[in-house]
């Protein structure tokens, strides 16, 4: 009897651990530094830096890099606000950079100390979220466009409205992100994806409710698998993911719809609490060294922000039809901006959409 109860408790604990399964591991930052080496604590997305480059940097600078994997901006923000996590360098997307600047969580970066970050893709030199380009080093960028499978989608999509085609019942995939999805419907209706106008948002939600019979799933983390396995026929996808998917399944196509969409960039940032900003700057610069940058982006498959690295890329990468489509249409993109209080309105609308009310 006691044995059974013990077993049950064990099982229960395991289940609870399982529920937290999506969480990253504990930061290793607090480990005592026994080797006497310098330590660089960074927080970045999963799979966004080639591990070989990290090792190369550790060797070159005789240091240790603690890579804390974080999978979304809000988690980074929460950790920074809590104050416990002392990162030397972090990664965040455009709108989050804006928030972190306002909250004074990140420092200006002395770009004169860097050699390789000066030949940026033009529209990332002074992006809307960091108008003087002082706080952020844009690292990778992309465009949220339409991904589709040519086997099932016979007519090349041109507009977000094509997702509403009744032929795609239960076959449309959307990102699991309120701003992206509501922003997509806003764009379809010709509005800004940063609107705080309630009528426009209500309209977008009404349209999205009409899209629900077509929606197979909302997914951000495993969206690639669903498209590769041809579960989803058409949907919205980041260009970097679409490029990956196309390499796995040649039937995949990607277009930037005529109404435009979200353009985004992930940035390297230095928190105000960084204990080793010098090493952080060296690390960013190391990643931007043209040869390193080329190697890195061949590995991660997202698009490069460093024009100097382009000549070192393979022909395949430079002419990747997905990345090219995004580059050629970058001017149709609109950055998602922080919308202050209106985020509550978006969240409510999102909950309404998903709970079918």
């Amino acid at each position, binding site marked *: *009897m006691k044995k*059974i*109860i013990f*077993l*049950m408790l064990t*099982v*229960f604990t*395991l*289940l609870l*651990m*399982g*529920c937290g*399964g*999506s969480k990253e591991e504990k930061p290793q930052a607090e480990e005592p530094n026994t080797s006497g080496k310098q330590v660089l604590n960074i927080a970045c997305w999963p799979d966004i830096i080639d591990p070989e480059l990290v090792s190369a940097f550790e060797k070159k600078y005789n240091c240790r890099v603690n890579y804390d994997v974080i999978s*979304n901006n*809000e*988690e980074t*923000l*929460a950790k920074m*606000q809590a104050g416990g996590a002392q990162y030397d360098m972090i990664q965040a997307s455009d709108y989050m950079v804006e*928030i972190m600047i*306002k*909250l004074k969580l990140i420092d200006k970066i002395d770009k004169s100390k860097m050699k390789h970050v000066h030949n940026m893709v033009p529209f990332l030199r002074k992006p809307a979220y960091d108008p003087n380009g002082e706080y952020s080093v844009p690292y990778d960028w992309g465009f949220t466009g339409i991904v589709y499978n040519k086997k099932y989608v016979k007519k090349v999509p041109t507009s977000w409205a094509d997702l509403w085609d009744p032929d795609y019942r*239960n076959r449309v995939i959307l990102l*699991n*992100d*309120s*701003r992206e999805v509501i922003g997509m419907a806003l764009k379809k209706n010709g509005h800004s994806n940063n609107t705080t106008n309630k009528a426009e948002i209500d309209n977008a939600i009404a349209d999205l409710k009409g899209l*629900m019979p077509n*929606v*197979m*799933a*909302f*997914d951000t983390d*495993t969206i690639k698998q*669903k498209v590769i*396995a*041809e*579960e989803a026929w058409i949907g919205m996808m980041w260009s970097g993911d679409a490029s990956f998917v196309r390499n796995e399944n040649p039937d995949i196509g990607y277009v930037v719809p005529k109404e435009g969409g979200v353009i985004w960039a992930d940035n390297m940032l230095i928190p105000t609490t960084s204990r080793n900003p010098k090493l952080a700057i060296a690390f960013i610069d190391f990643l931007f060294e043209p040869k390193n940058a080329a190697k890195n982006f061949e590995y991660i498959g997202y698009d490069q922000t460093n024009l100097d690295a382009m000549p070192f890329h393979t022909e395949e990468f430079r002419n990747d039809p997905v990345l090219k489509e995004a580059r050629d249409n970058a001017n149709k993109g609109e950055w998602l901006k*922080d919308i*202050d*209080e209106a*985020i*509550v309105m978006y*969240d*409510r609308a*999102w*909950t*309404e959409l*998903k*709970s079918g*009310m």
Partner: protein
Amino acid sequence: MKDGRLLLAPAMGWLAFFFIVPMLIVVAVSFASRTPYGQVIFEWTLESYQRLLEPLYLRIFANTLWVSFLTTFLTILMGYPLAYYIVQLPKKWQQPGLILVMVPFWINFLIRSYAWVIVLRSQGLINSLLLKFGFIERPMQLLYNDAAVMVGMVYALLPFMVLPIYVALEGLDWRLLEAAYDLGASPFKAFRKITLPLSMSGIAEGTIMVFISSIGMFIVPDVMGGAKTVLIGNLIQNQFLSARDWPFGSALSIVLGILSLILIFLYYRAINGSKGGAQNA
């Protein structure tokens, strides 16, 4: 006596620090306000609790309770015969039987959910087999709907129903059944009058564990339901992440906690009640 209490100090200290203090913080945050960037400021308000009463959120609560109820019902329906079967096995097979029930727990739950995706998706195991043998012409949509969510929930929580029922049945005095047969009871009547009432405590315990686990579940609806439904667990997760509304998320968590406490209270009432009933009978 005094020394004995001293021995409790580490455990009490641990609980106080890692359980009670965080709990109090959650309570405090649920009455706090937030800035547009999600910073919690301690200007006290009941706003988060008032928001809970809006029809939108009440309906999510109702829907969650419904899903949990259905999960519990199905786990009883499937778990009871399984537990009964294991109890009937020869002694040496019982422990292996129980271990088989628990083996899946050795693998992370998130991974097991994705394993279900691989089995059920359109190019998955089931669809491929059915296509190959010509039972269907196009893959069936087995995933990303309410039924798939239910499959995942029942799968995840079934052991919590099987184990307590097994414990209850194991302690059952089978001579009572023999007596019932001797007195001419049909197998069904003997089950209804003896086995079922005497294993009620196991069912009640399993119900509590399954129900409470399922009202907080958020992985299954996301992974197997295609994130198309919102249960309280998903709502709470959203408040702490994308909506950056920690006070509302905390208030939701508190209400969820209170709900669980009420259920545990009802469980103890039911257990004591059923024991009394058995004695009277």
